[in-house]
């Protein structure tokens, strides 16, 4: 069974079809890089997969289940454009809050563990509004990984990250893949993404232009996919 299955999804904004009959699959333990130009529909697709909005036609299945079911949401980790942590709470309070919402056995212990793994243990009691951009991004990464999700949905995860945060994120993603978790990430940073990706999907104007394994040619030359499969 696929970890993530996108079955003929259509999404309209007014009359404009942002997604047209998109069909994708990500097997358990794979890393699917969703690539495409700005406005191609990558974020729209990820938001539908995450259950934030609904497709007008088609279905999404996460391990065979509806993405909005409580059990599925427990297995999903989402890292979007926003950091999804509260400025007026401390780093520890933020992660403990999410730990409680995800019903972790010991939310505080998990929070402390992830603060350490992302290099934020020394500022654990600092308010997020006082954090630098890089620290905020690392906290966002900790928040997404905190509940050990089996499927990670990452929307432009490398954007606006400093070198240290990119290194932290890449290490965590490699560990997640090694542990058999599934990753679906949309990205413009092809070099970083294709280092990790096992599969690639190219979306162009809401349509799937290519979906297949990430080949050595793709990993060696990020422009290869666009040159080979172009735009629809």
């Amino acid at each position, binding site marked *: 069974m696929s970890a993530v299955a996108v079955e003929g999804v259509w999404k309209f904004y007014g009359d404009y079809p942002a997604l047209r009959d998109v069909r994708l699959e990500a097997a358990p333990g794979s890393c699917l890089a969703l690539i495409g130009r700005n406005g191609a529909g990558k974020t729209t697709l990820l938001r539908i997969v995450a259950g934030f909005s609904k497709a007008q036609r088609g279905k999404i299945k996460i391990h065979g289940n509806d993405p909005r079911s409580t059990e599925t949401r*427990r297995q999903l980790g*989402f890292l979007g454009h926003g950091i999804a942590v509260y400025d007026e709470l401390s780093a520890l309070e933020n992660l403990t809050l999410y730990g*409680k*919402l995800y019903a972790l056995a010991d939310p505080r212990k998990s929070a402390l563990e992830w603060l350490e793994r992302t290099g934020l243990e020394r500022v654990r009691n600092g308010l997020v509004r006082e954090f630098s951009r890089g620290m905020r991004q690392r906290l966002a990464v900790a928040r997404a990984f905190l509940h050990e999700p089996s499927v990670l949905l990452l929307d432009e995860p490398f954007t606006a990250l400093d070198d240290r945060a990119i290194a932290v994120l890449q290490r965590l993603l490699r560990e997640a893949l090694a542990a058999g978790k599934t990753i679906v990430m949309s990205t413009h940073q092809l070099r970083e993404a294709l280092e990790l990706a096992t599969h690639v999907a190219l979306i162009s104007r809401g349509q799937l232009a290519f979906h297949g394994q990430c080949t050595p040619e793709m990993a060696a030359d990020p422009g290869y996919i666009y040159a080979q499969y172009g735009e629809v």
Partner: protein
Amino acid sequence: MGYFRQVAVVAFKDLRAELRTKEAINASLAFSIVILLLFSFAFDPSEDTMREISGGLLWIVFAFAGTLTLNRSFARELPNDCLDALIAAPLPASALFLGKCLANYALVLAVELVSLPVFGIFYNVRWARQFPELLLVLLLGTWALTVIGTIFSALTVNIKLREVMLPMLTYPILIPALMSAMQLTTALVGGTAINSDTIDSLKMLIGFDIVFTAVSLALVETVLVG
């Protein structure tokens, strides 16, 4: 985790965030005191006249001041896309809604309980002669205001003019609850206990709370996700 524990986690998160910034409660409290003060300068009513308009005056102040708090309820989740993370978390949308309702309820009630003595001083009214019953009306009326305000706060969260839209949507629906609360409050501030003349208003208030709480809980998933 139990449903009510999830509700409590959301409620305490909102209260903690609000008590750190005091954005909504300061604005709401200042607004209600200023309005009470301005009305006390505008009119110089006798105590009898004051008793007759007390319910209307108080609930208009509570409704407008409450909207300032309610506007922030879901808007607070926008700056870092925290709403996405809450929607993604494995808690029912109704638990998220109830948690936010409870936090808003505590904040709006706090403003009301501070405003009442201020009203008594500015207008020279002994407002606490039927305090237990007045408190009951306050609790029921405030829950009506909170439930309607919170669900419309969720509905308007992505609208640019949400500060304008929230009162426009909220007040018309609140009319039955506000009318009942005003009538009861006027009688209770005047020293008259709830009797056969006002019991229907109390029933209306209770019925309104039950119906709109149930409707809001049923619709909130659709409101948030579509």
